[in-house]
């Protein structure tokens, strides 16, 4: 029987600054607490501490009386120094802290008076190595030093995980990133560690926030089900899945007493899994703003509450570094970004009874489709059956994370994981231990690493060795609603110029602009008053005939996610739901899509009809693809073109305006206008004897072009024309003079229907028809005498040689697009 030798080295192992052995360490003061949480609920910081005397009575060796020095076998001279004890002298090598005696034994000399700075100046994080019986036992880092007495010190050490509390990790968004890469990013150079290959290759999906490195490491370990177990002097930790290899601990090493505690069994677990992805409609948020008189910032860290993408700055603000969770900015301005879409869903295992004892995990955003089942199973297994044992043991190499076979406090044989030990090294390594019995660590790593997307009816066979699959059934999307017809071009209701709209009057799309001559009296050769009329007015405002609106997009197909136990070789029959047909034009709703089903003799029939529609759709993390999204908007029809809107006396014929383009499809060109001038002699007043001659002009505009629609161009507007004079049919003494006819409007284009959607998406809304072009307007003078000119609108009265008044038609809207056919996605 003898005390186990303890050696504490402070500083680098090869060249420690201090070395304490048993004779300096107070008995029962060298203790440690070490732990591993078998399900990863906690990432604990191991600690150990010891109290040591810094000063001893000097180990004396004695010079021969009367001698002043000593020459050793290496020809090194040691000088005699008188001490306070008058009778004796001791050798102190000059400027050294070690004694060497005549037998070449080395003693450590301590200065009789320890300075206040001794050990107190140890920097935080200095490595400390603890050896027991000559073998490596633990490594830690100085957390604090306390002075207990004049020559007594207490040093408390923490494990490498404790160092991570003071270190920040910027987090990130991960899509199939390896565990190893993320772990190395988190831990950095804080301490050496190794990762078991099975753990390291695990692919991670999800999000880590800007947080302490310890918290993020905890999230990572928990999601995967890995543990950090003690390593060696050179490697603080090995990260691995817990082993089920059992080590026997005989009764002769377990003290009487102890305890067995039972958990209140959980009957249900609810695990929230997370998916992050970006879509075009992601919400833009303001992240920083010092634009309104704020002080300029310099290299300022801005941390975001949620991950964002597409950062943008205004003003003089610049970004020197950024990630999904943060940006470092300088200057003055605003910083904006778009929030990633964040979908959550739940995996629920266990009882559906009325009053379950439920354990939930909600806020670890590395729990994804890939690992949620494993996490759920692990939590349920632990909380539904685990017992906690307490026992005092004499350890012989056991460490936390080991599975031990022993007798519990009631003498029952138990296999249990050593989860915590409070160690005291004396003549043995004694430890108060806590163990977890009745739990086998399962559910580590990822459930799903493969996927297949099925788009046609057929059968799928479960691969050999597969025990769990996830089936996502996405039904056919609803068809889009029909697109709307375009407005007809403007037209005047009955009559013909000059009996069209009076000044200020709106009639049938025609609006009188002014009537300069309305109050004049004329002679026999009176001139009819003339007017200016623009065509295309509605409610006092000239506007283009509107293209038809697009139909409403169809709703996405419903989707539902199932996790099912299977066996290799099982056949699953898949029937894909057809996308619903698009609705008829003018807003008729599209038909609902059909359901997608999966049927197996093992689990019966599953159907997407039991699922839900979602505005954000279903995001396939493995394939980085989104399904079951709402349909796209259709194309609005192009507006019809106006006639000349000008009320000024232009010097050229006024062309009609072109119809509006739609994508690559063009609106019809506007028709050409005409302008002529005539000299008219007339008597201004009825009693006037002197005629006056004045030059009048007539200006007629071409018709507006028809608006385009998706799939077709608009028709061109008609040109203004001149028709030779034509007699009145019922009064041959009168006849219409040369008539200037404005151009008719071009018809709006009829839209083609959109293509069928895909991926269970809603059908695209039907495309709108193009608006018809407006009649050409008239500006100018007209009269009734035989030399008169007559100005008419749009084709003119066929009775008088015109081609007929024609109202341009708006184009038809299209039927709505067919909804996308459904899809089945199987993960294993």
């Amino acid at each position, binding site marked *: 029987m003898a005390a186990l030798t303890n050696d504490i080295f402070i500083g680098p192992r090869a060249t420690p600054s201090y070395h304490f052995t048993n004779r300096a360490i107070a008995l029962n003061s060298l203790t440690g607490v070490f732990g591993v949480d078998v399900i990863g609920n906690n990432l604990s910081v191991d600690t150990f501490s010891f109290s040591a005397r810094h000063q001893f009575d000097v180990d004396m060796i004695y010079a021969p009386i009367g001698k002043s020095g000593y020459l050793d076998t290496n020809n090194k001279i040691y000088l005699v120094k008188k001490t306070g004890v008058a009778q004796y002298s001791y050798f102190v090598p000059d400027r050294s802290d070690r004694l060497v005696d005549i037998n070449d034994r080395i003693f450590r000399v301590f200065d009789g008076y320890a300075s206040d700075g001794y050990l107190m100046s140890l920097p935080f994080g200095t490595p400390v190595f603890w050896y027991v019986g000559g073998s490596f036992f633990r490594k830690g880092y100085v957390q604090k030093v306390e002075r207990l007495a004049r020559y007594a010190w207490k040093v408390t050490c923490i494990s490498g995980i404790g160092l991570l509390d003071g270190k920040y990790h910027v987090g990130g968004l991960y899509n199939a990133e390896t565990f190893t890469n993320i772990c190395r990013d988190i831990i950095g150079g804080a301490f050496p560690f190794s990762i078991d290959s099975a753990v390291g290759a695990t692919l991670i999906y999800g999000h880590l926030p800007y947080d302490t490195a310890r918290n993020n490491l905890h999230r990572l370990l928990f999601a995967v089900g890995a543990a950090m177990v003690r390593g060696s002097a050179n490697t603080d930790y090995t990260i691995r899945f817990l082993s089920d290899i059992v080590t026997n601990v005989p009764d002769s090493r377990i003290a009487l007493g102890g305890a067995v505690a039972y958990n209140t069994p959980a009957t249900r677990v609810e695990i929230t899994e997370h998916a992050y992805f970006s879509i075009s409609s992601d919400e833009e948020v303001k992240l920083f703003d010092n634009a309104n008189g704020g002080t300029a910032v310099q290299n300022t860290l801005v941390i975001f509450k949620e991950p964002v993408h597409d950062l943008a700055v205004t003003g003089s603000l610049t970004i020197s570094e950024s990630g999904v969770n943060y940006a470092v900015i300088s200057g003055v301005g605003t910083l904006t970004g778009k929030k990633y879409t964040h979908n959550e869903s739940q995996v629920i295992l266990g009882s559906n009874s009325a009053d379950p004892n439920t354990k939930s995990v909600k806020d670890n955003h590395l729990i994804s489709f890939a690992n949620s089942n494993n996490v759920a199973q692990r939590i349920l297994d632990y909380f539904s059956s685990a017992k906690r044992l307490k026992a005092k043991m004499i350890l012989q190499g056991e460490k936390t994370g080991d599975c031990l076979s022993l007798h519990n406090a009631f003498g029952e044989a138990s296999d249990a994981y050593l989860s915590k030990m409070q160690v005291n090294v004396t003549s043995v390594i*004694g430890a108060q231990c806590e163990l977890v019995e009745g739990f086998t660590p399962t559910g580590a790593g990822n459930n799903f690493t493969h996927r297949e997307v099925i788009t046609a009816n057929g059968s799928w066979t479960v691969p050999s060795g597969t025990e769990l699959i996830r089936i996502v059934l996405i039904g056919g999307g609803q068809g889009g609603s029909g697109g709307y017809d375009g407005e007809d071009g403007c037209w005047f209701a009955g009559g013909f110029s000059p009996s069209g709209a009076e000044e200020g009057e709106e009639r049938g799309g025609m609006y009188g602009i002014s009537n300069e001559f309305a109050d004049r009296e004329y002679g026999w050769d009176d001139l009819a008053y003339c007017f200016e009329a623009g065509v295309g007015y509605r409610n006092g405002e000239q506007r283009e005939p509107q293209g038809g609106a697009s139909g409403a997009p169809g709703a996405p197909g419903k989707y539902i996610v199932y996790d099912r136990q299977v066996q290799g070789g099982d056949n699953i029959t898949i029937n894909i739901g057809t996308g619903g047909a698009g609705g008829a034009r003018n807003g008729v709703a599209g038909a609902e899509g059909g359901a997608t089903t999966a049927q197996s003799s093992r689990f019966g029939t599953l159907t997407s009809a039991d699922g839900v529609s979602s505005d954000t759709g279903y995001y396939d993390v493995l394939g980085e693809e989104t399904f079951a999204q709402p349909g796209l908007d259709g194309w609005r029809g192009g507006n019809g073109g106006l006639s000349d809107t000008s009320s000024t006396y232009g010097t050229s014929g006024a062309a009609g305006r072109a119809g509006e383009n739609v994508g690559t499809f063009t609106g019809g060109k506007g028709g050409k206008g005409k302008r002529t001038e005539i000299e008219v002699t007339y008597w201004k007043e009825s009693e006037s004897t002197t005629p006056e001659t004045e030059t009048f002009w007539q200006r007629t505009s071409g018709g507006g072009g028809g608006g385009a629609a998706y799939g077709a161009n608009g028709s061109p507007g008609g040109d203004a024309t001149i028709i030779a004079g034509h007699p009145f049919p019922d009064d041959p003494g009168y006849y219409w003079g040369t008539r200037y006819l404005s151009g008719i409007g071009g018809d709006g284009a009829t839209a083609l229907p959109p293509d069928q959607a895909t991926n269970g998406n809603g059908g695209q809304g039907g495309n709108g028809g193009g608006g018809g072009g407006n009649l050409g307007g008239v500006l100018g003078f007209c009269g009734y005498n035989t030399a008169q000119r007559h100005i008419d609108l749009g084709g003119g009265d066929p009775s008088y040689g015109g081609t007929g008044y024609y109202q341009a038609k708006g184009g038809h809207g299209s039927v709505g697009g067919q909804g996308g056919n459904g899809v089945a996605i199987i993960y294993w």
Partner: protein
Amino acid sequence: MALQRMPLKINRVDFSALTERLGYIIVYEERQGSNTMTMQNGDEYLDIIVKKPALTWRLDSLTNSDLARLHAAINAATYVEVEYFDTATNTIKTAYFHGTISEQEVGVIRAGGYYRFRAPVLTMRAR
């Protein structure tokens, strides 16, 4: 035949002569750690770190000058070198001990101003 003296040097001062009439008592103390426990199989585990000697010496009728020499020897340092007879090894050994003397009662006052003290006890525990 003269009595054999039990050797006793304290801090290299020979007090053997004073052991002639009364020797000292040696007992070996077990120094235990906190891991002493009874095991599940009934075994008792004693967490004995080490066994160390402790000397007890009854100092009948020391003179004042003897007593002063004894004080000086044991107080030279917290732990002083002691040469003693070790019963466990049947040898004379040297080790460091911490010594204390119990209450010292004046016994006899002799003419000439010296005293003899009645039965003080010296107790020394090895370091």
